[in-house]
């Protein structure tokens, strides 16, 4: 059992961190060039040069392009109108049509940004070409923004995801193990024998908590080591602080698990309830989608989500180098949570029924 507990999460960490990417690459790009001029070809060349786009086909008509998109062969269609170059030179502006397959809304958003960026850059270059020096005075002063990405300079999604996935693994393993635990003893019948002994409720619960607490901390250690070795995730903050927070956090999760275990009669029931909570907690943790973009009521619910705090603390400490005072609010809430959940677990464990 112990090798399984450690090996499977490691495999998950490696696979998920590499696969669960928010980057959109290999966009299938098609275009309809009605202009056939050097300007239009130059624009298409820009897309060709980008590593994000695979320029596939030149469609002869819009209808053909649409049907290809329907089949899923094309993600983005750029339509260059007739007299694109002429309008640009004479009237100093021209229109382009961009169609994006938005079944995956998030990907479509990213694709839109890429397309806009390429066209803007093209626009700036061509302005210099088209408007001669004489026109300089009428050229609008353009404001250029140079974004600076703090804490994750290269926008490396792995830097962002690995701490999050580590949170997920530590949480799931400890929750499932503790959730199965007491109920398993109920099923086998050993609990009956234990209940007749003078052992105190709190002693029993602590005895149940401790091994899983050790396993949880072990998992964190293995996960952090891998994050450093394989993904080279920066660890700016203090590791002892991270361990301090995790040690309290695991108590919360174990408390929840034991609480579930006390209220169920079979491992199947416990499994189902534990699964129900993990799914909600994970999807509402800010791990995959930012909490800021959730509706107000959902944001209120996330206040009660321990995983949310762990994800925040993990990212804050590892990537931002947050110190104790920065994470104090989370630390207090988590400690409170730990006391409540474990108190409930002890209370709900009945030796007599």
């Amino acid at each position, binding site marked *: 059992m112990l090798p399984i507990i450690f090996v499977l999460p490691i495999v998950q960490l490696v696979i998920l961190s590499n696969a669960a990417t928010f980057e959109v690459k290999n966009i299938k790009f098609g275009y309809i060039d009605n202009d056939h001029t050097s300007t239009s070809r130059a624009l298409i060349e820009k897309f060709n040069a980008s590593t994000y786009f695979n320029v596939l086909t030149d469609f002869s008509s819009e209808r053909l392009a649409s049907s290809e998109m329907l089949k899923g062969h094309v993600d983005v269609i750029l339509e260059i109108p007739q007299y694109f170059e002429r309008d640009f030179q004479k009237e100093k502006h021209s229109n382009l049509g961009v169609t994006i397959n938005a079944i995956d809304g998030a990907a479509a958003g990213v694709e839109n940004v890429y397309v806009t960026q390429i066209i803007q850059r093209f626009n700036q270059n061509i302005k210099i070409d088209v408007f001669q020096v004489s026109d300089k005075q009428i050229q609008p002063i353009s404001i250029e923004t140079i974004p600076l990405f703090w804490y994750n300079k290269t926008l490396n999604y792995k830097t962002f995801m690995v701490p999050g996935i580590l949170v997920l693994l530590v949480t799931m393993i400890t929750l499932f193990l503790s959730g199965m635990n007491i109920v398993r003893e109920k099923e086998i019948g*050993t609990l*009956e*024998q*234990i*209940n007749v*002994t*003078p052992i105190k409720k709190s002693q029993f619960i602590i005895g149940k908590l401790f091994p899983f607490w050790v396993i949880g901390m072990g998992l964190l250690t293995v996960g952090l080591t891998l994050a450093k070795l394989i993904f080279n995730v920066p660890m700016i903050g203090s590791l002892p602080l991270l361990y301090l927070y995790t040690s309290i956090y695991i108590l919360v999760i174990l408390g929840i698990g034991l609480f579930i275990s006390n209220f169920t009669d079979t491992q199947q029931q416990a499994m189902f309830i534990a699964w129900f909570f993990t799914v909600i907690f994970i999807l509402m943790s800010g791990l995959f989608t930012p909490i800021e973009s959730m509706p107000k009521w959902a944001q209120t619910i996330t206040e009660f989500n321990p995983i949310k705090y762990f994800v925040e603390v993990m990212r804050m400490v590892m990537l931002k180098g947050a110190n104790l005072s920065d994470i104090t609010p989370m630390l207090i809430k988590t400690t409170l949570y730990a006391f409540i959940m474990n108190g409930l677990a002890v209370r709900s464990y009945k*030796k007599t*029924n």
Partner: protein
Amino acid sequence: MGISVSHISKSYKAVKALKDISFEVKAGELFGLIGPDGAGKTTLFRILTTLLIANEGTATVANFDVISDYKNIRKSVGYMPGKFSLYQDLTVEENLDFFATIFGTTIEENYDLIKDIYVQIAPFKDRRAGKLSGGMKQKLALCCALIHKPKVLFLDEPTTGVDPVSRKEFWDMLKRLQQKGITILVSTPYMDEAALCDRIALIQDGKILEIDTPQAIVKHYPKQIYNVRANNTYQLIKALNTYKHNHSTYPFGEFVHYTDSRLNFNPDDLVRYLESKKLSNIEIEKTNPTIEDTFMELAK
């Protein structure tokens, strides 16, 4: 006083498991609770071992009340549930050590009490409990229940599913434990084991039918029982059941136990009747009633 139960009732939703049960077990007595599956034996055990709270009535174990003094009961009783409930993935020795620790004692401290039993499983002390045979498991469970030197020992169907030799050994062990002053309450569905107890209570459908020594219970049997045998047992039972003076007919081993409703019963009448039913090799002889006969009669 070992155990005292007065007017205990317990129901699970609609099912009445125990109906107004009262009995007393003297200190140092080996008391048997005899009854078929579903009679309420386990429920009674769970109430006495403080695992379950009765709806009505009071009970004391070793002079401690099961409700108000449950902590003391847990310290001073040994309980062996019907289902094997030790840690299967711990070894024999680890299990024993574990339970000794929970009770705040050590194996060495009470070794003399379990010595007789432990030597039998000692060769397997490094084997996991789950890998032991049925009889070995029972011995280990008994050791674990005795490790803290309990005043009262509760054994819920300890011999169910155990082979006849191990069963006999097990009862010998109980007799020896009794001599060491431990009050023992044992339940069993086997009527032959009842005769080994000091006193027994016959229980069915949550009610106690009779409480007495096995000898007295047998003496209470109102009729003369006859062992009847013929060439075809099935036809024999059918024939006896349709006999107009039939009082009771139960198969019992190789014989059929028969009682007649008449006081002046003459076996020759029965032989003639059975012969008329085309049965041969008919044997009829008087026999002494057993606890099983008594139980069947009372449960009628």
